């Protein structure tokens, strides 16, 4: 009975999402796409216990701790919210599930949130007006084009001041442009560097420069004497007469209740929650896909708010990247670190890539697509989500890669490249052969088909024009001088989830009647479309400021 109720909810939710996405009525979707109806019918039998809403609990007789505001999750958004609220005069307690602070923000390679900052002016980057900046964030692939325009405008306007605030807090930023996705070259993507070793630039912490942000925020939070409860995941919201009055957290010493006038949910996405992924994301999109988040990214904030009837949106969208060469079936659906190992970076270069039929299938130089990584989505669309990237002796050293393929951000060879290359050749992850025939044997492909594809590619390289897929001529490096190398990649990787809670213009969580749930705020990946460090940090500031104003009775 209970399951039937759930699936009925499922069906209406799916239909609602579909209808809101494509603008047709729910009944029309069900009527014209029988496959959707049958999917819903199948899901009736499947239960997803870890995807169910988490019901609120009643207040305890006595609070273990009390504060004005409890922030749930000490990642970029959470620490930004906590510090802002404390700076505004509110008494804040910060809960964190992991034994350390930083969350998934500390795992990013950087952020594009410097638009409108002092530092952009300092380096002479183009000065964009607010409307141009808003348009950038709508145009650039990723979750941000899903953010409600009122919110988007507020967040974008807050990005520059947030960057300045972080600089004042001790964050040092590399002046080299590390990301610059759009052809206009806006000088947009800068990453933190180690303030103690500025001479090493972004390469010192590459690939996880995000910790430059989170370390400074954590230091500031500790300076402000904000109590940070580590290893303390929130387990339920505490309500009295449907009003938020606190949070319950599961600590090593048992359940602890923290009383508060407002709660800010910043627990991140749900990419480490298999039940939520199965429930919300289309099956093939998560097949053979691994998770880049910390294991704590289980959507707790979303589920707790759903326990109070919160609305969620864009739950079916995830950020997709390539699966890499170190794919292993055991790691599917698991959180794991692997992304920047040399063989993974090799498959990301703009060299010849073929599928299991030994055929080339796309322009290998396109980085961005709808789900962020075009290369990731294109290779995941092949048979068995499998593809191979080929090199010859002229294109394998770190120097050659940098010169010939001009890699940047996640493609850029890490400092352990030279040490890892021979190691992975020895263990066969990077396949090596003296002829294309022999290489095909190692790859398990038809040698004639592979020879044909390599010959065709070399012919296009000589011609300096890619008639087949229109890759820029500068990346057309022939595969001609032995030894020959190939790296196999499989599956995909999920960097984050885009779905989350729907908010109003003060970052309150909205219920199904589209009314604010009193005292409940959200920022970061917990909010629908919030999964960008460049959005988490300013959104955390806005949510923290709004919550502080509300609990301290200040007018806004």
């Amino acid at each position, binding site marked *: 009975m209970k399951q039937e109720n759930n699936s009925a909810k499922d069906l209406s939710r799916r239909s609602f999402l579909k209808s809101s996405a494509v603008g047709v009525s729910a009944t029309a979707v069900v009527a014209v796409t029988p496959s959707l109806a049958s999917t819903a019918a199948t899901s009736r039998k499947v239960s997803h216990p870890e995807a169910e809403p988490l019901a609120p609990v009643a207040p305890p007789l006595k609070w273990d701790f009390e504060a004005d505001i409890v922030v749930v999750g000490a990642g970029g958004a959470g620490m930004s919210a906590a510090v802002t609220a404390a700076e505004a005069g509110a008494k804040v307690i910060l809960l964190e599930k992991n034994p350390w602070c930083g969350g998934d923000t500390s795992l990013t390679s950087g952020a594009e949130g410097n638009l409108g900052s002092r530092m952009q002016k300092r380096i002479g980057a183009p000065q964009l007006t607010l409307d141009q900046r808003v348009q950038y964030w709508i145009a650039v692939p990723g979750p941000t084009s899903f953010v409600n325009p009122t919110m988007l405008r507020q967040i974008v306007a807050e990005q520059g001041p947030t960057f300045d605030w972080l600089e004042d807090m001790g964050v040092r930023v590399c002046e080299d442009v590390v990301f610059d996705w759009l052809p206009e070259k806006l000088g947009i993507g800068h990453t933190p560097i180690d303030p103690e070793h500025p001479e090493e630039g972004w390469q010192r912490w590459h690939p996880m420069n995000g910790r430059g942000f989170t*370390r400074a925020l954590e230091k500031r939070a*500790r300076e402000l004497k904000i109590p940070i409860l*580590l290893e303390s995941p929130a387990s339920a919201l505490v309500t009295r007469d449907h009003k938020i009055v606190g949070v319950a957290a599961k600590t090593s010493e048992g359940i602890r209740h923290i009383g508060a006038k407002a709660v800010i949910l910043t627990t991140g996405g749900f990419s480490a929650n298999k039940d939520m992924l199965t429930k919300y994301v289309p099956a093939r999109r998560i097949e053979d896909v691994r998770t880049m988040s910390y*294991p704590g990214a289980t959507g707790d904030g979303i589920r707790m708010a759903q326990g109070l009837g919160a609305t969620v949106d864009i739950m079916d969208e995830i950020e997709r990247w390539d699966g890499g060469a*170190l794919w292993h079936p055991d790691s599917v659906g*698991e959180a794991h*670190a692997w992304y920047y190992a040399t063989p993974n970076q090799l498959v990301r270069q703009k060299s010849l890539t073929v599928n299991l039929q030994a055929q080339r299938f796309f322009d290998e130089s396109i980085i961005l697509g709808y789900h962020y990584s075009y290369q990731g989505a294109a290779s995941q669309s092949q048979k068995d989500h499998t593809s191979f990237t080929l090199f010859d002796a002229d294109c394998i050293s770190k120097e050659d890669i940098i010169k010939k393929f001009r890699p940047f951000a996640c493609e850029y060879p890490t400092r352990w490249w030279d040490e890892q290359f021979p190691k992975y050749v020895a263990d066969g992850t990077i396949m090596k052969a003296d002829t294309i025939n022999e290489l095909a044997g190692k790859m398990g492909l038809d040698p004639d088909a592979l020879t044909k594809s390599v010959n065709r590619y070399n012919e296009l390289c000589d011609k300096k024009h890619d008639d087949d897929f229109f890759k820029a001529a500068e990346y057309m490096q022939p595969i001609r001088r032995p030894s020959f190398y190939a790296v196999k990649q499989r599956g995909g990787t999920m960097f984050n989830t885009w779905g989350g809670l729907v908010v109003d213009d003060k970052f309150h969580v909205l219920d199904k009647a589209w009314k604010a749930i009193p005292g409940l705020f959200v920022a970061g990946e917990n909010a629908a479309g919030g999964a960008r460090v460049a959005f988490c940090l300013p959104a955390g500031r806005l949510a923290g400021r709004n919550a502080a104003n509300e609990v301290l009775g200040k007018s806004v």
Partner: protein
Amino acid sequence: MNRLRIVFVVLALAASSVAAAAPQQNKHAAKKVSCEACHGVANPIVAPKVEQCSTCHGDYKKLKEDTKNINPNPHDAFHLGNGDIRCSLCHKNHQESTLLCNQCHVQSRKFDIRVP
């Protein structure tokens, strides 16, 4: 009445013996470290805080120096924030120690570091 009292006493004894049951494994016993030295006398018994371990083993700064030749240095781990994570997440006195890093660093990215 007497019978009830006996039942109560037996139950109370059973409960206290559960609470005081000595753990199967106790690596600190060899060093003659008492239970109270780590856990204090509070009930329920909880894992000791970093400060407690530091009184004998030194703080993170010292430990970082002690293990500086291990690559990567487990006491200066890349992902750790400014805080010091609880020692017993890796070093376990009453069971096999583990390397927390390998929770995510799996397969070929696993670190081969011995945890005492």
